[in-house]
């Protein structure tokens, strides 16, 4: 496999604000690469620089070896951009919208018509293809929004939060379309703040916050950064310092996040186990109102890396 997208030390400053702070990653052909981070993390700014809408303050972006800075037109021909907002002409029908975007990329006649038909079927809008899109539901508009970015059959598709604000059925439909795109040999950069989507879709992920990539790898690799074991979450009336001191004295127990009244701890797999850990804490005079035990996930990793929850 070769890298379709290479991003190196990409940086964007707006005055005193650093929106993207030197991120680097690459995406291989046929891969879905996820950008996981909360709102305002720098995901959209990164995509805007990758597709040439914003000029980076520093850094490089190459698509199939071509720099967006030196040859933006050539790069843009290979990109399909699906923005976060639903950007369609509501006076026009789905077919007319698709034909317009195909026309922008120089598609004409039979080639354009057959591509439009294909996409309408793919996103399930063929029966309402001639209807003005202002009559569409939110989910239908989202599906069309996605299709508009695919009409010229781009090599790399940039999907910026394509499932925001839609019902589960429409979301499922969009995720299926994304999978089918990749099955057809295309490459996808997918930004989201929905953990389940990232886990389901992405071959590799980058966790981004405050304009920086905090960690990247496959879902499995990222989960291992949490350590092997079970996640123990306790709540009660205790000071953070008391719990921290207690945890250090219990074998097989590691602190992940400890606050007053609430703590997240990892019970290592090679240690004595959860029961032993809880007994150790109780024996040091601690009591809890609530105890939760579960397998760690990306949300927990995000919390560990950033100190805050993903959806805040």
């Amino acid at each position, binding site marked *: 496999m070769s890298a379709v997208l290479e991003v190196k030390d990409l940086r964007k400053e707006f005055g005193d604000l650093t*929106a993207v702070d030197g991120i680097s990653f690459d995406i291989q052909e046929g891969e879905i690469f996820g950008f996981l981070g909360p709102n305002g993390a720098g995901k*959209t*700014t990164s*995509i*805007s620089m990758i*597709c*040439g*809408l*914003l*000029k980076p303050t520093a850094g490089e972006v190459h698509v199939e070896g071509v720099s967006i800075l030196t040859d933006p*037109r050539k790069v*843009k*021909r290979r*990109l399909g*951009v699906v*923005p976060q*907002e*639903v*950007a*369609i*002409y509501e*006076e*026009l029908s789905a077919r*007319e919208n698709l034909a*317009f*975007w195909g*026309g*922008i*990329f120089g598609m004409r006649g039979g080639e354009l018509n057959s591509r439009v038909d294909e996409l309408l079927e793919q996103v399930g809008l063929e029966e309402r293809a001639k209807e*003005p899109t202002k009559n569409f539901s939110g989910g239908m508009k989202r599906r069309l929004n996605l299709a*508009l970015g695919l009409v010229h059959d781009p090599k790399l598709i940039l999907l910026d939060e394509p499932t925001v604000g839609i019902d589960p059925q429409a979301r499922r439909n969009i995720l299926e379309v994304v999978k089918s795109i990749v099955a057809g040999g295309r490459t996808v950069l997918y930004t989201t703040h929905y953990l389940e989507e990232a886990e389901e879709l992405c071959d590799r992920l980058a966790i981004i916050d405050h304009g920086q990539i905090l960690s990247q790898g496959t879902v499995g690799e990222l989960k291992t950064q949490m350590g092997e074991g079970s996640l123990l979450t306790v709540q009660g009336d205790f000071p953070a310092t008391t719990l921290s001191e207690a945890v250090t004295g219990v074998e097989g127990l590691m602190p992940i996040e400890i606050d007053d009244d609430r703590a997240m701890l990892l019970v290592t797999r090679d240690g004595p186990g959860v029961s032993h850990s809880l007994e150790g804490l109780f024996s040091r005079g601690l009591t809890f109102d609530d105890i939760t035990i579960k397998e760690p996930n990306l949300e927990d990793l995000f919390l560990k890396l950033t100190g805050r929850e993903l959806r805040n």
Partner: protein
Amino acid sequence: MWVLIRKDLLRRWRSPLATIVMIIFPLFMSLAVGSISGGGGNDGSDFPRIKILLQNNDENGFLSNALMGSAGQDESQEYLEVVAVGDEGTEMMEEGKASAMVVLPEDFTAKVFNREPVQIAVVRNPAEGIKPEIVVQGTGVVATYLDQGARLLGEELGIIQVMMEAENLPASAKVGAVSAGIMTKINGVEKYLFPPLVEVGGVKEEDAEGDSGPASNVFGYILIMTTVMALLFVATRSMGDIFEEQNSGMLKRQLATPLGIGLVVGAKTVFAVVFGVIVMTILGTIGLTLQWIVPPVDLVAVVLLGVSFSLAACGFLALVVSLVKTEKQAGIMGWLVIMGMSAVGGSMLPVEQMPAPMQAVSRYTINYWAIDGFTGLVFSGEGLADIVGNIVRLLVMGAVTITAAQVLLVRRFREVSP
């Protein structure tokens, strides 16, 4: 570029309400203002006649009979229908059979000759708007002249009254003496009394010239004035659409394609020009169908003038759009510019009726050159050679403003915030 222009034309076609309103506006204005002002052609045959009832209660009075005899004569017959009535006049007014009734009181002549206060009553028909007002104003003018005449010729009028009441014809020498006295007084005040009549004569001369031209009418004139203004609104909306595309994310999406911002802005401007020409064509066709504009008209000249005006209108409004930051600001600023240019440029009032300083300023507006050109073609039978100056001026104004706007808009939208 054609893909972008076609898209915008299709959007207007699919969502036509705003366009229909912009087309209806000049038609409505033409119909409303044209109807109030008569709306007829240059021969005046379509001018609605005003029916006046004249009730003379001073039956034997010399002056009242003279007024009765002169009313509705000469050119005024085209506009006035004067009917002498007796007591039945009141009933006729109640039935709405006339615009107004003028009542000359008893002893009218005697009181005027004796320089005593006397009142002429005017009964208006409340069902009619402007016509009774014309009668009131006209009667006021007659009263003023009678009043001034009585003051000026009081002595001679007294002598004439005695002569009229005498059983025998007056001696020629006596008549000659009175006539000489009247002439001497009139000559003395002629320059103060008659200038308005001389001005009226000037207007009649213009009418006579117009009679030989095409038979388009006042509706057509107002249609041209208001179409020019409506086209400015069309241009504002077309150019302001770039903000709508920015807000909806469509602009950002377009700029993520190989299209450059220069092409996107350029296509929007070309669309605005093309759309303006389409709207003008629709309005012109309606004007022809309704016979507000009557051929022959130099079609090539009309098309060239229309295109150059649309270009200039789009340039001006594109410049306005390029200088503001939001769609709302573009709307407000556009409105102010349009109203200003329309007021000064002749879209609200014929330039000839404006004060001289305003007429001088009007030449700096695109409205002036468009209206001047179109009215010349439609009403004076002018051709391309006569209005080539108008076309060149509009093209130059359009080229300068479009270039400036293009530079500013490209700079504005070159980098779209995420």
